[in-house]
């Protein structure tokens, strides 16, 4: 097994270009004045500034977490820039006024903001460094009463909703990176689906890091009111740079009684080169709270980032609520991933399902870390967990750290995990049927991940399969 895979594995990261735009960028460093400046640039109300400052002061008392199964040198938080925005973006402009350079960037990424309105199906909020560039299909959505806009706009136009739900799932004191994000977050997306509304199209946020030495700290808040439904997609890319860049985001989801939220991510941040130079540190806090009869489903395909530290979780607060986590995490070269989920069963008859597929190749390390917690009140709670790892090559590692904590005897929890090598007999069989090694591997890997891919919206599923192929290129040989 050799050259075709080599070429496949060593394929270049195709989103690594840099957009030349005039930017309003803060000097590196972090202190209260920087936070005040970010807040004033966004013309934020007093309460939000106070909240940021509280988060900052809390952050100062916290230490960088190193309990994950990932190794990185301590980050110099004073060497980072905490705000960068293309000067051409003015608040509340319509899409027609957006800088053509920026639109072009998204076009290259396959996200055409202007044409988007013609393609039925997806509404996009595009975030470029610290600001939202534009949101499509807003009028269409507003007919249903759905609010979908940049976070900053929501702060100005829907302050009551933001104030009510901001930090209600991920408090600013939650963890080191969440506190940092709460202090310095740039922009992000906000979505509110009113009672009983089934959102007719997929909503999507596309995050792009462009500026150098800049961290990206975006924040997404999704509120699904009683009986509503929304499916949300998230994509992300960054230029190739030889230094690490920090991405510390927060996604908060509130699913009120009987609501359903489906959140899908294809994470394709720049992963660094094959020797581990550069790449994004993806330290993300994602959490949902599901009230009575609500259902929250996380689906993620993690292929990028030098280091991933991410545990999309569901607090099953209400009775009969459901949480799901479907994940494919692929690492190659020197990538490190420590990812998984937390399912906190608080309500009665709550259900959770965890399906995690880890694939490690090259010199990478891939860890699943999950916590299933059944609290004493959670009568009849049910959990099923399956995490499988596949190893391609003999220099990589696959690790599993499940924490199962059960304090109610009427609950049932089941956990299964397996780790194995990619099947040589399977590859041989495929080759005997005329497939080359590269196709054989891609077929086997797709089969391995099928349970997760089938949860993805269609366009995403195709993209995910293609990405998987690229990430694994050159991993067998």
């Amino acid at each position, binding site marked *: 097994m050799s050259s075709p895979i080599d070429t496949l594995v060593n394929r270049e990261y195709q989103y690594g270009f840099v957009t030349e735009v005039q930017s309003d960028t803060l000097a590196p460093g972090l202190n209260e004045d920087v936070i005040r400046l970010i807040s004033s640039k966004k013309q934020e109300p007093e309460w939000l500034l106070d909240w940021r400052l509280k988060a900052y002061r809390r952050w100062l008392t916290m230490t960088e977490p190193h309990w994950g199964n990932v190794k990185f040198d301590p980050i110099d938080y004073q060497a980072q820039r905490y705000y960068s925005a293309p000067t051409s973006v003015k608040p509340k402009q319509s899409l027609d006024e957006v800088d053509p350079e920026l639109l072009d960037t998204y076009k290259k990424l396959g996200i055409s903001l202007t044409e988007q309105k013609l393609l039925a199906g997806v509404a996009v909020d595009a975030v470029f460094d610290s600001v939202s560039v534009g949101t499509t299909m807003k009028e269409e959505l507003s007919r249903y009463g759905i609010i979908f806009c940049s976070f900053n706009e929501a702060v100005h136009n829907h302050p009551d909703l933001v104030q009510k739900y901001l930090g209600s799932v991920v408090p600013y004191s939650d963890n080191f990176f969440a506190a940092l994000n709460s202090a310095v977050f740039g922009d992000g997306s906000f979505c509110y689906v009113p009672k009983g509304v089934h959102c007719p199209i997929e909503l999507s946020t596309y995050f792009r890091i462009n500026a150098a030495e800049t961290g990206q700290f975006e924040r997404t808040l999704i509120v699904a009111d009683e009986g509503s439904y929304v499916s949300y997609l998230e994509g992300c890319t960054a230029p190739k740079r030889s230094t690490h860049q920090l991405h510390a985001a927060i996604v908060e989801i509130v699913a009120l009684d009987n609501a359903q939220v489906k959140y899908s991510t294809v994470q394709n941040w720049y992963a660094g080169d094959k020797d581990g130079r550069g790449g994004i540190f993806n330290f993300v806090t994602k959490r949902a709270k599901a009230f009575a009869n609500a259902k929250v489903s996380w689906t993620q395909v993690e292929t990028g980032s030098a280091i991933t530290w991410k545990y999309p979780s569901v607090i099953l607060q209400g009775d009969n609520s459901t949480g799901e986590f479907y994940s494919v995490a692929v690492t190659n070269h020197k990538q490190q991933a420590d990812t998984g989920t937390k399912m906190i069963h608080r309500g009665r008859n709550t259900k959770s399902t965890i399906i995690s597929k880890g694939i490690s190749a090259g010199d990478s390390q891939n860890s699943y870390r999950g916590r299933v917690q059944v609290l004493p009140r959670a009568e009849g709670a049910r959990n099923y967990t399956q995490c499988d790892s596949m190893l391609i090559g003999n220099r990589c590692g696959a690790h599993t*750290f499940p924490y*199962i*904590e059960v304090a109610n005897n009427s609950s049932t929890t089941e956990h299964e995990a397996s780790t194995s090598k990619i099947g040589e007999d399977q590859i041989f069989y495929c080759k005997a049927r005329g497939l080359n090694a590269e196709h054989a591997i891609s077929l086997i890997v797709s089969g391995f991940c099928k349970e997760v891919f089938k949860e993805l919206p269609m366009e995403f599923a195709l993209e995910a399969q293609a990405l998987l192929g690229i990430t694994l290129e050159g991993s067998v040989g």
Partner: protein
Amino acid sequence: MSAALAKYAEAFAAAEAAPGSPAWLAELRKAAHAEFNSIGFPTTRNENWHYTSVTPIAERTFRPLKGAQSSAAIGGLIERAVGDASWARAVFLNGQFEPSHSSLASLGRGVRVSTLTAALAEQPDFVSAHLGKLAAWNAQAFTAFNTAFVQDGLVVRVARGVKAEMPLHVLHLVDKQAAGCMIHPRLLVVLEPSAELTVVESYISERGVEYFTNGVGEATLGDGARFYHCKVQRESREAFHVGTLQATQGRDSLFHSFSYASGGALSRTNTYTRLAGQGAEVRLNGLYLIDGAQHADHQTIVEHIAPGCASRELYKGILDGESHGVFNGKVYVEPEAQQTDGKQTNHALLLSPTARVDTKPQLEIFADDVKCTHGATVGRLDDIALFYLKSRGMGADHARAVLTYAFAAEVLETVELDELRDGLEKIAFERFTRA
């Protein structure tokens, strides 16, 4: 230094002044004591102790036991041990060897058993070559604690190709004299290539005695050696127990460990092995039955170092009352350990609504040609199975007892020694069928 550590330092200084032990051992104790002081008792922030708080141990100060007498209680305690009277026997009462109740001669030629004290006098080079070489007294607080305060123990050596003629039963008995005291027993087993030995360790104490047992064992398995180890911990419900067994295995060796735990207010059993020779196999099994406010924790670490080794683990727990069970199994597969075959299973049965289980089966794999799986379940008795038995005319209580016993029996069946297996099955059956 905490108040408790300061007390232990005083006790250590007093013991150190007493003459008798060779210089190398004094050095080892001293180094271990320094480690113990610097590590201190683990907190729940320590990942290895995440679910077990040792505060009840740390907040008490246990005294070293001095001048205890042989007592009339000993006969009754020996009676309670599960096993066969014909086995070779080493009896320790409150940590002190009881030669009059022990019989070590019958193990046959090539099997040398002696107390640690005797071995230090008779075969000092052998002891110094092995004692403290496997157990991580420089990393684990309780192992350091034991190494600093070790009084006596057992040293077993089986010569090349020799199969011990019968099992060796080590009885750790405790009576009222030990109230408020700590006992640090030690076990050292060296099996030369192709040797075979079975050791049963029984921990039994008088009811109501509060004390602390902190045992450490080290077992070296030569190529092709077979070591069967059963630990039966049925100490008083006021007792505290920490036991660590560290093994290292040569090529094609077999290590089978079984742990039965039903005693103690708080107990922790560590079973660790290094599969250092190609084709070695380990089977770690365990059953814990707890109720009331008991806490039982099992930790296993299997390090696959050489290629082609197999590990099998099955641990089960049955919890009633407000008891708390913990299982943490770690399997490491080093880059060289290709063709590793690892399987780890952990099931817990919760009989009461207030019992609690925390389990963490973990895999860390650095080699690709491996087959490793683990599974864990937590739940209560199957309603459908109960219904079935009831529909066949069985009373609800009896049906529950039968199903609970059946759950335990699966793992009890892995005990090779007939007398021990039958004895434990009987205890378990009586436990679940008592009115």
